[in-house]
């Protein structure tokens, strides 16, 4: 066995080693003077430490003051009931928020977001409906005094005539 690290003799002298390791080190001591001196130094150091008063008496006045302070501290400690009384509304609001977030998390996405299904399935009818809707929006815009954005035009008169024609057609379709 090679010599243990010197700090291991601290654990040896303090009886903090597992029994197998301790036995191995004891066997090593029989044949190693340097380690034996090391172990003796540690044991002597601990023996010196043991000459100190381990439980020095604390003055009775100090202990009495401490008891008084501890009793005061006990009285000042908030109880569970007082904490609940003070913060019950905060707790209730927090519970509502937690419940709402929890529900939103637990609910399946399909329950929260409905797919956009058209109420008219015929393609031609859909196109006609889109045109009528756009025309109605343009008419509403004109009646409010706002010219609809129809893109660039060659001249104002031409634009006006085209619009008039377009509107007439739309009115006829809407009336039909």
């Amino acid at each position, binding site marked *: 066995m090679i010599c243990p690290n010197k700090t291991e003799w601290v654990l040896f002298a303090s009886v903090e080693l597992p029994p197998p390791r301790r036995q191995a080190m004891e066997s090593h001591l029989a044949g190693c003077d340097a380690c034996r001196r090391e172990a003796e130094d540690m044991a002597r150091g601990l023996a*010196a430490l043991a000459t100190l*008063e381990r*439980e*020095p008496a604390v003055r009775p006045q100090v202990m009495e003051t401490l008891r008084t302070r501890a009793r005061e501290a006990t009285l000042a400690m908030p109880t569970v009931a007082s904490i609940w009384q003070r913060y019950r509304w905060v707790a209730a609001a927090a519970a509502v928020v937690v419940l709402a977030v929890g529900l939103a998390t637990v609910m399946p996405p399909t329950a929260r977001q409905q797919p956009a299904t058209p109420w008219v399935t015929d393609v031609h009818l859909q196109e006609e409906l889109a045109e009528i809707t756009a025309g109605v929006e343009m008419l509403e815009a004109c009646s409010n005094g706002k010219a609809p954005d129809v893109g660039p035009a060659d001249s104002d008169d031409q634009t006006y005539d085209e619009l008039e024609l377009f509107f007439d057609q739309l009115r006829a379709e809407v009336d039909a």
Partner: protein
Amino acid sequence: MTTGSGDSSDLETLLVTFAPRVYGLLFRLVGRTDVAEDLMQETMLRAFRSLGTYRPEGKFRAWVFRIAVNLARDWIRRQPREPSVSLDDGEDPPVAVSLRTIAPPGAAMGRRESSKRVEAAIARLSAPDREVLLLRYYGDLAFKDIARTTGEPLGTVLARAHRALKKLGDLLPEDES
């Protein structure tokens, strides 16, 4: 000890179990009776207030002594300079002088002399080395618990203990060990 309610029986158990040793530790760390008394009270009050939340899986003893060590460190840090001793002035260090007042009156002369020398030697140790030895002695803590208490690696703690024990061991004649 019972824990969990913070009632008066808990307090008495706490005081009887820890107060003298915590006081002994603090006294040798700070070197002043009045300061050690104040810090011991603060340590006990903090431990007492936490009895209700203490969970038995932790090491309560180590936790109490960690509070004490931290309070002592804070106090020492606030001082203009650490209580230290000149090796050349030939006088007793302040710590050793104060300790005479709490030395057991009936102690044998030989033991008292040895104790005086040990007190002086402990006062001369560096603060971290002294902390390790005193936590071992007063706290009865294993070195791995001392490592947790001081926040240092176990190897460092053992190196400190080795150095400090060697110095103390040199004070005792070989036949006293």
